[in-house]
């Protein structure tokens, strides 16, 4: 129950066993994905044909490694580009929202807050299709009216960025608001009292205080953007982010290249997570 209460050794043991099994369940898929990245076989499955690094570095068909797959390399670049924009935009708007909701009282605030949460309960597909349908009809109307082309409103990176931004912003808002809520407004008053201007107080006191939350939400936004599929699939044009490319490849039939990319992704997000953790620890 809790450590201060007596408990039978059997129950304790069974509980531990369950927890262990659970974490094995969590780790197993990732473990096999990683292991088969090194299988010297065309398929990511048993039998084990021997160890190879070809799925990373190989450049002889059919053993084309990640580092020689143009489509994958290009889509990693695309993903990074999208993720960077999404995280900048959503952290910016999230920060504005946090100040708006924490610092201001206005009519319709509760309603606006509800609307802000809405993206959390709209399935990603629907976000994707609604944006697709809406921008298409706007573009059609505009094009009919002006005779010009509005490519930005057609599936492509701009829409992918906007689509991901449309729901990731909610997360950023929540994370940053939570931190801002913990901010003691008397700190800002103290700064004013000590002679700082309003803007100076926000820059020197509030923003540094928010920084851990801003960094954390930027990292989360990156990760969410990188792995988003449902919304992206509807909005993607000719430049596909990594998940879409991988999905296409998976539909074609998987080779251990996918395992190799996945392993690299794991390493990258682990590194990113670790970095943000260290950053938070240092700041906290």
């Amino acid at each position, binding site marked *: 129950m809790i450590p201060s209460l007596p408990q039978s050794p059997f129950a304790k043991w069974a509980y531990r066993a369950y927890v262990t099994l659970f974490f094995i369940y969590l780790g197993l898929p990732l473990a096999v994905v990683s292991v088969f990245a090194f299988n010297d076989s065309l398929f990511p499955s048993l039998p084990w044909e021997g160890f190879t690094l070809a799925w990373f570095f190989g450049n002889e068909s059919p053993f084309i490694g990640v580092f020689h797959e143009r489509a994958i390399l290009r889509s990693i670049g695309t993903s990074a580009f999208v993720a960077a924009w999404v995280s900048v935009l959503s952290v910016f708007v999230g920060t504005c929202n946090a100040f708006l909701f924490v610092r201001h009282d206005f009519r319709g605030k509760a309603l606006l807050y509800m609307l802000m949460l809405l993206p959390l309960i709209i399935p990603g597909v629907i976000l994707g299709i609604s944006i697709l349908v809406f921008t298409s009809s706007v573009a059609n109307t505009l094009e009919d009216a002006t005779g010009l082309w509005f490519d930005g409103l057609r599936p492509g990176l701009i829409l992918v960025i906007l689509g991901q931004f449309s729901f990731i912003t909610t997360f950023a808002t929540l994370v940053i608001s939570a931190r801002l809520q913990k901010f*003691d407004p*008397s*700190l800002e*008053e*103290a*700064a*004013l*009292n*000590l*002679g*700082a*201007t309003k803007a*100076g107080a926000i820059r*020197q*006191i509030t923003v*540094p*205080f928010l*920084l851990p939350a801003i960094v954390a939400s930027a990292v989360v936004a990156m990760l969410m953007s990188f792995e988003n599929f449902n919304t992206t699939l509807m909005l993607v044009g000719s430049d596909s982010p990594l998940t879409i490319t991988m999905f296409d490849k998976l539909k074609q039939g998987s080779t251990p290249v996918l395992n190799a990319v996945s392993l690299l992704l794991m390493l990258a997000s682990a590194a990113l997570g670790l970095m943000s953790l260290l950053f938070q620890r240092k*700041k906290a």
Partner: protein
Amino acid sequence: MTETTPDLAPSDLECRDLVKEFSEFRAVDGVSFDVPQGSFFSILGPSGCGKTTLLRMIAGFQSPTSGDLLIKGRSMIGVPPNKRPVSMVFQHLALFPTMNIGENVGFGLRQRGVARAEIKRRVGEVLERVGLPGVSERRVDQLSGGQKQRVAIARCMVLEPDVLLLDEPLGALDLKLREHMKVELKALQAAFNTTFVYITHDQSEALVMSDNIAVMNKGRFEQIGTPQEVYHAPRTAFVAGFVGDANRIPVQVVDATGGTLTLKTGGGAPLKLDAAAQGSADWRPGQRAEVFLRPEAVDLLPAGSEQAEAANMVPGVVDAVLFNGANSTVTVRASDGSLMTAALPQTGVLAALRKGDAVTTRWHPSQARCYPVAEG
């Protein structure tokens, strides 16, 4: 310069009929006072009486609905907080957690554009003066409560403000540390010779530290005076009840002629008070009033020691003994059922008093205060 103090004493801070209204509600209601240079001025009042609101008006975080507010003779109305020559120590100190101690203390100087080296020197100096040399590099959370307290003061003092405002700065500290910091704060104030305006709801803090205390209630000042005046000669029933413990006895005026005020309790027992000690109230026979009497002003006499001529002497029986070391008290029930609490010194012969013992209470007519009760 003002009506209340002679021209000779220059006053650092002066409030004239300050009012602050929140929609319908008057949080501060016509408060006037001035604080002479270099003095320690406390505002003492119960929670919600408007202390913080008043202080925040002085600091400039709230603008008065009406009235004027002068610092060193200059009106502060319309001056933003960052332009006022006052500094404030916040209730929870408001040390910047993202900066180390040195950066915290140097913050105000940086805003003024003081040179780097100069800041460093002055920060070091002021930290030394508050007894914390060499903590510049520490993080805020590496200091104890009392140390943080002193850093908060140093951060203000380095700017050499005309007035330092303190909003219950000891509220968050634990009992022992609070006792200690009371004495220390007073010493720091004396050392810097800066005007302190201190708000608190703890009477002991106000009594121990202040040169002058204003007792505040429902947005108004009920009395301004030295600690002794406020304690010994409370001007209103509220002050008498709020500052220190007291027995409260509801009475009716019997006679107010001569130097003596004669009253009678609900049970009919007669009380005599020095009329001179009672301010200037007009007493009408039959008027309802309330007598306040401090437990330590009640003498306990062994039973049977009554003397006919002594006033305010009532035989009774011990109803309860509250043993609390030096602060022990005894509650005595008179024959008419009324209760009287008296301090029970642990050194005298009566220290061994037990419940049920017969004992006589007596108090001097000059020791009690009487206030008319508003009829209604």
